[in-house]
């Protein structure tokens, strides 16, 4: 890894991220899609967010799954949300819990 690698990475990701974000709206924008497609679209967020929760909770180095302090934090966040606590309380509780678990268990 060199300084060149860093700037090439940043440049390439600037371009590709903008292109990927533009692709859907540019190619399909403003078009009426069949109602069945719209029913599928309505559920994309739920499917993607659930996957992000799983990957960010259990994803470890080198494509492994691990259960660590993050998981305990997420469980506590879930409890906060269940009792209708706000997103910020949930997120804060997750971070504090994970920090405490790490401090107590030393890992």
């Amino acid at each position, binding site marked *: *890894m060199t300084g060149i*690698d*860093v700037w090439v990475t*940043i440049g*390439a*990701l*600037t371009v*590709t*991220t903008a292109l*990927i*974000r*533009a*692709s*859907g*709206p*540019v190619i*399909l*924008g*403003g*078009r009426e*899609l069949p109602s*069945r497609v*719209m*029913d*599928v*679209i*309505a559920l994309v*967020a*739920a*499917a*993607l*967010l*659930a*996957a*992000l*929760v*799983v*990957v*960010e*909770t*259990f994803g470890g180095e080198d*494509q*492994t*799954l691990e259960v660590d*302090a*993050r998981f305990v*934090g*997420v469980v506590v*966040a879930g409890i906060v*949300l269940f009792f*209708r606590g*706000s*997103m*910020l309380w*949930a997120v804060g509780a997750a*971070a504090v*819990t994970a*920090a405490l*678990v*790490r401090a107590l268990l030393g890992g």
Partner: protein
Amino acid sequence: MSGASSRERLRAGMRAGVPYAVAAGLVGVSFGVVAEPVMGPTAAIVFSAFVFAGAAQFASTAVLGAGGGALAAIIAGILLNLRYGPMGIALAPSVRGRAIRRAAIGQAMIDASWAMANRGGGRFDPAFMIGATLPSYPVWVIGTAVGALAGDVIGDPETFGLDALFPAFFLALLVEELKRPGAKGAAAIGAGIALVLTPFTPPGVPILAASLGALMGIWRPAADPVIPDAGAEPERSLIVDPAEREQRR
């Protein structure tokens, strides 16, 4: 959408986006702390300002930090950004105007804003989404700068449990999403796909593949009571007015 003007919906989006901006700021700080030793403060800040995609930035920085080259880092970043493909397709029917305008609106897609702009029935509110993204952008860049410049003072972000912040953040968004008809099934399938694929595929692929969970929607009409003549916006009751959403908090 509903009667509100696009300016009102933009403002409503901005109000709804503020708490997410606070969380994004903390994640930005941890990105700055992690990225600074790998690429120095300037590159870290430019990265956040130009790419504005947390997961991809963390992934490609991890590759570079482990001694990988640019190509591997770019591929890691692209894989994590590929979810903006299906997200953009979902957004597309709601985005009007010329191609350049549609491309610009797509740039405002970040996970939280996009999810909050989902109005059900396949409809999104682009003005609301742009508004919700606006507070996050400066905070993300400033957070990165703080982390990159004060990393020595801050120390390891994991000590503060900042890595538990991401999944909790997505969980909060998911809980809102699960109120929609059919969403629980789609979420369960999406989570299952992600869990099964994580050990076997490069990072990013499990999340992209999980969008297939939305195909549950094909069977949805049978599961839902169909109200005749209400076809235009069948989920009216679920369209949460942003002001109302705030009051509930």
